[in-house]
């Protein structure tokens, strides 16, 4: 197995799916000749030609609306929106159509498209380049919202997303793109969409997170182990919506304590739904209130101050200790 960055792993997923299935089409701004601003689509245009890899004009609604048409036809468009901060330009196409064409046509049509887009902070980027607004998509019935946390699951989930018969918003953490390498098998690998995973077993406390925040979360778990002798169970959601609560509910039934971590703004963020599910399904097992460690209710600041905004291991440990204190 080769050791790959997340960028390489995503590239592998695209390359293999495109080789296997000529209905997979990649489109977006700078995805062709340039190979994508983060190089996720690097080399695809050489291998598959400009009929399979479309450098589109600069228009996000255009990209998504055209993808919807392709998907209705039976193709499997994988479009890239250069930064999630510019995916609001195509918000209506997703809400008004991608999410609804199956319903509207009573199953005659479906929209097997993937919208890939880099999200999140931590890479010293410009304004609009560091947001984390998965809630917007998670609150749209008809849409699936997937966020991988490392090269290997990113590859497997992207393959599954491409094959998924429904529209998938696929958030890729810029901070993870080149942060570390993992063994990624050359052979095909998929992962079920809609299923969280237990990243680490534990009995004292449940940490629930996903995406880029898995790193500080795991770091916090290690710190808690080392310094406090606490065994945290760590859940990686992978799919934010439809949110499958079984695994984290089971975990909290066992631990009675939980911390939810995300970089999105706190209020009305994904953490709120997780807390609510636990309220509904694990209330009588909760020893203490669930803690949320999140971005603040502000726009993520420009890069010189972004670190202060983003949750880190210390903040998670503090919250965990609070959750363990009663």
């Amino acid at each position, binding site marked *: 197995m080769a050791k790959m960055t997340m960028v390489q792993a995503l590239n592998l997923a695209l390359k293999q799916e495109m080789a296997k299935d000529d209905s997979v*089409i990649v489109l977006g701004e700078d995805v062709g000749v340039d190979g994508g601003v983060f190089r996720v689509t690097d080399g695809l245009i050489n291998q598959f030609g400009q*009929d399979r890899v*479309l450098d*589109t*004009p600069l*228009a996000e*609604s*255009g990209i*998504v*609306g*055209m*993808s*919807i*048409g*392709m*998907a*209705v*036809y*039976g*193709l499997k*468009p994988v479009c890239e929106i250069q930064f999630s901060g510019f995916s609001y330009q195509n918000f*209506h*196409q997703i809400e*008004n*159509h991608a999410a609804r*064409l*199956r*319903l*509207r*046509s*009573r*199953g*005659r*049509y*479906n929209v097997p498209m993937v919208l890939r887009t880099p999200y999140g902070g931590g890479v010293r980027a410009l304004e609009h380049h560091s947001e984390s607004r998965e809630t917007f998509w998670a609150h749209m*019935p*008809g849409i*699936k919202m997937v966020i991988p946390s490392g090269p290997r699951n990113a590859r497997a989930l992207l393959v599954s997303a491409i094959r*998924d*018969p*429904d529209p998938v918003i696929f958030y890729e953490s810029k901070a993870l793109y080149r942060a570390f390498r993992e063994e990624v098998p050359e052979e095909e690998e998929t992962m079920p969409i*809609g299923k969280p995973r237990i990243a680490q077993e534990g009995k004292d406390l449940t940490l629930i997170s996903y995406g880029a925040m898995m790193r500080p979360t795991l770091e916090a778990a290690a710190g808690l182990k080392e310094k406090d002798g606490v065994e945290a169970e760590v859940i990686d959601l992978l799919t934010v919506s*439809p*949110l*499958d*609560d*079984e695994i984290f509910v089971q975990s909290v039934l066992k631990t009675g304590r939980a911390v939810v971590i995300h970089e999105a703004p706190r209020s009305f963020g994904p953490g709120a739904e997780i807390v609510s*599910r636990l309220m509904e399904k694990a209330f009588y097992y909760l020893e203490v209130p669930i803690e949320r460690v999140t971005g603040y209710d502000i726009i993520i600041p420009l890069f010189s101050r972004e670190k202060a905004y983003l949750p880190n291991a210390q903040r998670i440990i503090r919250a965990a200790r609070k959750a363990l204190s009663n």
Partner: protein
Amino acid sequence: MPRNTINIPDKIEYLSILNEKGELDAGLEPDIPEELLLKLHRALLLSRKFDERLLNLQRQGRIGTFPPINGQEAAQLGAVALLRPSDWMVPAFRETAAEIWRGRSLESVIIYNNGYSEGAEIPQDLNNLPISVPVGSQILHAVGLGWAAKYRQTDDVAMTFFGDGATSEGDFHEGLNFAGVFQAPVIFVCQNNHWAISLPVAKQTRSKTLAQKALAYGMPGIQVDGNDILAVYAAAKEAVDRARADQGPTLIECVTYRMAVHTTADDPKRYRTEKEVDKWRKRDPIVRFQKYLVDKGLLSEDKIAGIESEVLEVIQAAVDGAEEKMKALGDPIDMFEHAYAEMPAYLKEQKEAFVTEVAEMTEEGDHG
């Protein structure tokens, strides 16, 4: 050339073949088989009568709000007549005539207008998209469909309809620009019916015509008399032929008029005069076409009357059929279907809770 007028390759033309009196400009007469001419005529009549019946049903409270098409039949049918079943038809929400031509049942229209999604279901063998309510947003889907048809090396095309108001939306712009760049086989049919609810087209844009907006995308644009089905057909034929021959997209502006209300929730008296409507009444697309067909010896008053009563019967049967079918609809449990290919766990829980709730409430007879 320090200060020079730039020569723009595309030009914008205006086309009219049957004048307001129904007189033919013989030199421009398109070559349409008699059978097709008669089929178009029946479709015009059927659409008009069905529209009138829908309005009637709505006023009786037997269907909900809907957008009448009266006056726009030729603009729709003249264009859609060029399509093959394998082509794609991408409507907005005021294309009932075009949808029926493309095989949509009258029953389904009634059922949809009664708020049942069953009425939007599209038979497997028809490449129509369902109605699209968000103005202009469907235009991009046609570009994707057309592109896909080309990618699959068919010579199928996509035809999309929208109104004058839709030309102001960003999606119109992005759609036409993409189609130009990718040379997608798409025919953009703008039904300029002069009004977008209460806004006259003169306030929709300062552009003299809508057709000339094609110049912004390097594609041909043509303005036609949209109440002249021959002109619409001729323009659409050129566009469809070009698209099939991989010569790119076309914008067709059909100048027509919305004779009735915007939807049945609208009161046009607030914003336009009866005089204006009267002016357009004289340009009725059906009357003109009928005169042409009578002149051609293909129709007579009698034959027309016969067709009228035949379509009225068809419509009555559809009303009866739809009302019968709707008796079996309405179980709200249906609303949980078609969200995803597979129902997510939490939604299953919600559905189960709903079922229990309904059952228990019925049992308890509890109504608050």
